[in-house]
């Protein structure tokens, strides 16, 4: 059997025991063969790992959207005056935390842990189109993690299109390029237009503020996400706990 066939059949899981030992023999005696084999194995593993991560972020979105209502979510009936008092107490405590607590864990570390660029959900890319319009080019660059190029293209689109979600993706590109102040402005703008990705934008704006060491603002946004109980509510809870 030729070498290529041997490798293919290995991945097809259809080698006989004799063929498998032939492969092992070649692997230890033929450097070129060994390299080719390792390359394909590494490619397979990399693609699998990438896909697993994608699936996990998909699941996490689902779990954020449908929190399991266990004991915590039982409604507590409170008298109005008690409610007012507890709100006042909460505000008191949180502002105390904001003012006096500068965080035990480094904000940059937290930022690195929590920040991952949002996937392209607005402009699915059919690759191999002959004509790629500006928008497609921008999102291709974005998906390929070429944020410099993506940013340039989003900016160009900015003047030509009214689609506000472009601001959202432009802002994420800015975050990737460590331009958090500009990103924060764009997110704020986007949020004020009530765009479809508003929750998402609030999450990323919170991360921008975290990076800019404006912890109070960051927490305010995180709390809003928790109250809404939708996108990233659980993660926001976790992050806020680490901030405090």
């Amino acid at each position, binding site marked *: 059997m030729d070498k290529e066939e041997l490798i293919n059949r290995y991945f097809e899981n259809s080698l006989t025991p004799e063929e498998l030992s032939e492969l092992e023999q070649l692997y230890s005696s033929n450097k070129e063969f060994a390299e080719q084999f390792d*390359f394909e194995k590494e*490619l397979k593993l990399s*693609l*699998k790992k*990438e896909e697993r991560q994608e*699936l996990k972020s*998909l699941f996490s979105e689902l779990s954020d959207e449908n929190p399991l209502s266990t004991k915590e979510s039982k409604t507590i009936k409170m008298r109005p005056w008690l409610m007012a008092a507890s709100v006042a107490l909460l505000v008191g405590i949180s502002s105390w935390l904001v003012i006096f607590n500068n965080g035990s864990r480094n904000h940059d570390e937290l930022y690195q842990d929590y920040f991952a660029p949002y996937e392209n959900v607005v402009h699915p890319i059919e690759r191999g189109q002959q004509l790629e319009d500006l928008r497609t080019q921008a999102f291709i660059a974005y998906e*390929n993690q070429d944020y410099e190029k993506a940013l340039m293209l989003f900016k160009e689109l900015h003047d030509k299109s009214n689609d506000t979600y472009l601001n959202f993706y432009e802002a994420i590109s800015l975050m990737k390029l460590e331009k958090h102040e500009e990103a924060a402005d764009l997110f704020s703008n986007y949020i004020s237009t009530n765009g479809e990705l508003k929750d998402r934008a609030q999450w990323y704006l919170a991360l921008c503020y975290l990076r800019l060491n404006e912890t109070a603002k960051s927490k305010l946004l995180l709390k809003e996400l928790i109250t809404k109980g939708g996108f990233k509510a659980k993660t926001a809870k976790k992050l806020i706990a680490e901030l405090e």
Partner: protein
Amino acid sequence: MNTKVLMSDKQLIKQLKNRDRNALKEVYNDYRREFFKFANRYETDQSTLEDIFQDALIALYENAQNGKLDTIKSSLKTYLFSIGKFMLFKKFRDSKEINVDDDYVFDQREKSVMQEILEDEGPNDRQKWLVANFKKLGEKCRRILELFYLQGLKIEEIMAVQGYENKNVVKSQKSRCLKSLKDLIQRKDG
């Protein structure tokens, strides 16, 4: 536990084999609550349970692609929950494996997939780099390589699915694509 294979199970398995994410979402939503209830006996930390549930779904997905569910006699739910149980035991009581009547008996390949998923800590830099370059390949190349490495189709099956003339065309196309990928990587490496 319900052991009958439901019609909808068959449909879902078929979709999972085709890497249909919506089918996976459906399984997630259908069984999450029940899984937590079931797994609470073994572990009560909610975020650990969420991790295990997610890993179990990924194992279900990959084993479906490996053809392990093609002739399955039990329900999708039994299979999924057995994966979950296997993972819980692996994680917390490595030495002991308890088998209960209604548990599914996994073969070696299924076990190694589950083990690999449990131990997966995400791609390293080199692997990320490989994937980033993979994404730069043309549609045709990405398709053929994904069918082969991710979906586990045989060269012959790819020929049929993608309408190639014969096996040799698929083989040489595949090796051309691998060559382009290597070129992309080397160009930036050096």
